[in-house]
């Protein structure tokens, strides 16, 4: 295809470039012009991280073919401030603490800039509506709304410019002061380079061939045709691993690339490197893998039954980990109870959906040190594991942690760094890999789903006598963090309550599903969801207020936990008191009394929304203010 000639004004500078016609405006800005402030969070118009202005209109540049840029005026986040300074809005993001990982922030700043350009007096509700196309996974949006309101007020004089400045700490004490984030300027300006923004001279791009099967034996892999493709610089498979293959947070059961068999759909089987990412991707089709499909299991309970397909030889029962906790005698406790309540709870697999898809850059340096730059949450452990896998001393393995565009536990697994290292070693060139959103979703760990059977015995006065909790969780095809997740789920399962008789069992199980792994709150979210919902049911049956039933059972200073640890200081009662007070809670048993309670719709709530109405209302106001 002939190249296009693009002439445009970008951030106030005239540019004239040849561009490949299949590129998107996002690629042109990032790869050809180096404006990496625009990010690719999804490549499909769903997240807003790629937002830029084209002739003053806010567009998602991942949806715009580069040809459309011809003759336009484009602004990216890098072009908003003058001479490297920050706009009022960017300063407001800094002041309000509106950036966390920062990956959504350039797009968010663009969308917020558009919002205030469209209506300099936009209300908080209108701001929310105008930011509706931009996802942030970290902040919960509240501080972003605060920032946009602050910028609005400073710009129209309702608040002084000093409202954007750092506040002096009380008595010079920097611990306890809401110091503005030191990394925020680099995030609101788009200057911060994440791994996928980094380039090195002579760099190759990696593309990964993935398993189409949930469970299959690999009969053969033939890479010769792919290797013969012009522009392909290297192909790797499991045979390229020089040391002891296997990684994982607790058990090292996962090979760098599938070895002998595949255990889930999307598992990495081979990888290709080329200077042109398109060449690398196309060459994947030339790798011939012969599979022999095996019976697969997709349900944790089925996987625990005798005769179920076995995933890993070392675990013939498919159990990754069982954690038991025992206190007293639950059967005796149930017999003594006035009330027994039983229920089943279940939670689903959840995607981390950090806005930054996995990315990394690897090279072998002049001293032969294999170096991997990636947003890994655990470079220490990765260094140890990789040194064994590539049979090099630890001093010859170097991990550098790049800024993390959201992790939440999902970047603790060394899922792609091994492939990067192997390819850098094989080609002796820098190699970069950037996952697509689809690759990130279908191949990396999820939050463990859970199935919990719960039985609780209580006395009439609300005291819990006994709790029996059994939680079974689908860990998917590899161990990853399952063992730790089951441990934390178990230790914290019965909640911060003193209970004389406790029986807890958690089971993490192998299946041929997408692996489950570390995710913020790590099993404790699943088990405490069950406990806290269960307590509400019990409170209703006993006619007790939900705070009261928790207070009756709450651990206090000196309490002994379910693992028989004595806690010196327990803030549980203080937390209950403070919550009851700040929420203006109206005391009463949880009997579905929403219709009659009088503590609703007060301070601390937002107005309910019907999509579009706020926009319509404020649009009306816009025209009024224009008339005025």
């Amino acid at each position: 295809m002939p190249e296009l000639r693009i002439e445009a004004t970008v951030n106030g500078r005239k540019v004239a470039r040849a561009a490949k016609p299949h590129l998107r405006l996002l690629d042109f800005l990032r790869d050809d012009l180096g404006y990496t402030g625009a990010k690719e969070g999804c490549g499909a118009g769903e997240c807003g991280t790629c937002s830029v202005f084209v002739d003053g209109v806010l567009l998602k540049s991942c949806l715009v073919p580069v040809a459309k840029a011809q003759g336009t005026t484009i602004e990216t986040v890098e072009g908003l401030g003058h001479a490297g300074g920050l706009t009022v809005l960017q300063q407001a993001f800094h002041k309000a603490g509106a950036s966390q990982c920062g990956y959504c922030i350039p797009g968010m700043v663009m969308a917020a800039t558009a919002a205030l350009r469209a209506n300099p007096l936009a209300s908080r509700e209108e701001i929310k509506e105008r930011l509706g196309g931009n996802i942030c996974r970290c902040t919960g949006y509240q501080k972003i709304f605060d920032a946009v309101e602050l910028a609005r007020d400073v710009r129209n004089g309702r608040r002084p410019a000093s409202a954007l400045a750092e506040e002096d700490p009380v008595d010079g004490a920097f611990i306890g002061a809401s110091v503005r984030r030191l990394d925020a300027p680099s995030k609101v300006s788009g200057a911060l380079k994440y791994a996928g923004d980094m380039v090195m001279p002579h760099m190759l791009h990696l593309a990964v061939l993935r398993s189409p099967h949930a469970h299959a034996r690999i009969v053969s892999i033939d890479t010769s045709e792919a290797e013969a493709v012009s522009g392909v610089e290297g192909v790797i498979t499991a045979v390229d691993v020089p040391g002891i293959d296997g990684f994982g947070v607790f058990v090292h059961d996962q090979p760098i690339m599938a070895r002998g068999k595949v255990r889930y759909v999307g598992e990495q089987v081979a990888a290709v490197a080329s200077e042109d990412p398109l060449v690398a991707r196309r060459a994947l089709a030339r790798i011939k893998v012969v599979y022999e499909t095996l019976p697969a299991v997709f349900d944790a309970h089925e996987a625990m039954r005798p005769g179920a397909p076995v995933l890993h030889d070392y675990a013939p029962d498919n159990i990754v980990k069982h954690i038991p906790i025992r206190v007293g005698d639950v059967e005796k406790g149930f017999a003594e109870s006035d009330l027994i309540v039983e229920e089943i709870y279940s939670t689903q697999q959840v995607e981390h959906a950090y806005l930054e898809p996995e990315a990394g850059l690897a090279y072998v340096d002049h001293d032969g040190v294999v170096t991997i730059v990636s947003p890994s949450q655990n470079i220490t452990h990765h260094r140890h594991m990789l040194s064994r896998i590539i049979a090099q001393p630890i001093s010859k393995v170097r991990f550098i942690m790049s800024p993390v565009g959201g992790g939440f536990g999902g970047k603790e697994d060394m899922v792609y760094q091994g492939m990067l290292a192997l390819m850098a070693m094989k080609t002796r060139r820098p190699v970069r890999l950037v996952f697509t959103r689809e690759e990130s979703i279908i191949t990396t760990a999820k939050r463990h789903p859970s199935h919990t059977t719960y039985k609780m015995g209580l006395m009439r006065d609300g005291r819990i006598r006994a709790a029996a909790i059994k939680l079974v969780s689908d860990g998917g095809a590899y161990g990853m963090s399952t063992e730790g997740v089951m441990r934390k789920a178990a230790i914290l399962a019965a909640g911060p309550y003193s209970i004389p008789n406790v029986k807890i069992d958690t089971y993490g199980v192998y299946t041929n599903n997408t692996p489950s792994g570390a995710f913020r709150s790590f099993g404790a979210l699943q088990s405490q969801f069950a406990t806290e919902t269960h307590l509400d049911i019990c409170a209703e049956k006993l006619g007790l207020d939900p705070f009261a039933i928790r207070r009756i059972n709450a651990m206090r200073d000196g309490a002994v936990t379910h693992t028989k640890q004595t806690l010196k200081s327990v803030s549980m009662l203080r937390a209950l008191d403070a919550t009851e007070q700040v929420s203006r809670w109206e005391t009463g048993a949880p009997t579905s009394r929403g219709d009659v309670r009088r503590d609703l719709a007060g301070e601390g709530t937002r107005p309910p929304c019907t999509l579009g109405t706020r926009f319509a209302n404020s649009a009306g106001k816009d025209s009024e203010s224009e008339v005025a």
Partner: protein
Amino acid sequence: MARKRGRGVAACWYGIARTATVDRAGAWAEIDDGGTAKIVTGVTEIGEGILTVLAQIAAHEIGVRPQDVTIGDNDTARSPEAAHAGATRQTYMIGNAVALASRQARAALVEVLARYWNVDSRTIKTAAGEVWAEGTNHKMPMSEAVHIAKSRGVVPVGSASFGTDTTGLDPVDGSGRPWQAYVFGCQVAEVEVDTLTGEVQVLGIWAVHDVGRAVNPRGVEGQIEGGIVQALGQGLMEDYRTVNGHAATPNLAKYILPTSLDVPHVTSVILEDPDPIGPLGVKGIGEPAMIPTIPAIMNAIYDAIGVRMTSLPATPEKVLEAMGRRARAARQPVAAE
């Protein structure tokens, strides 16, 4: 009335740092030229604000300002080992390690100055870039103090490892000491349920969390707000599904995330019950923030419409289905009579 409101409450507890194993983290500190400080440690920002927290801690302990602190890159070949960025351990583990290392660096500087001024080292104070000896006229900028120390052969440096006194769990009854610091919290949720569509809106969350000691209160709020919205996503909409192992929700068009229009107003209250063991009293917030949210929302749904959502997520379809079941169950006994 098609729209019904309700409220629910839920509490939580959580352990800080790595579980049922000894956790440890290392850090180096140097008081550097120009009265600045350099902190090197093997862990860095994943978005929670730890770089700023560490700069505040170092500034506070050494007596400079946070903007004078440079935090070195996290690089296994260049920085001391500090393990991973997770487990709600950063402020606790790395924060305490940085505090200890900073105290050591400061002590090295103070010792030189005590000799230089011929005063008792206990009278020497440092704050916001200045050094002085109490009860005297001796006072100078930190930059000069560093210069004096270096010309007397002392680089004011410190290094420290912070470790936990923890054990594994007994394989039979689970007894053990998995963490040395625990936090507690509680949240109330207020929801509105559309009984025609089954849609649940969370309008307000009141969240109270013990963090030990808040280094940066705005950052703590950011963790609470972000955690709540992630939990809201899992509670009401997010659902990664596979069919025979094949992802049915492989992109952000199918995998639904909370947007700016879905989020409640969050009122955060920070409780401080200082950790008695670590040098700073800090604990943590990242993970516990999201634990009470889902049960609080589910309990609020029950309050509003009388159905128990025990299977997540409580999507509009599942809420309507549960309402239908409840209505049928309510009719049945009547039919039987």
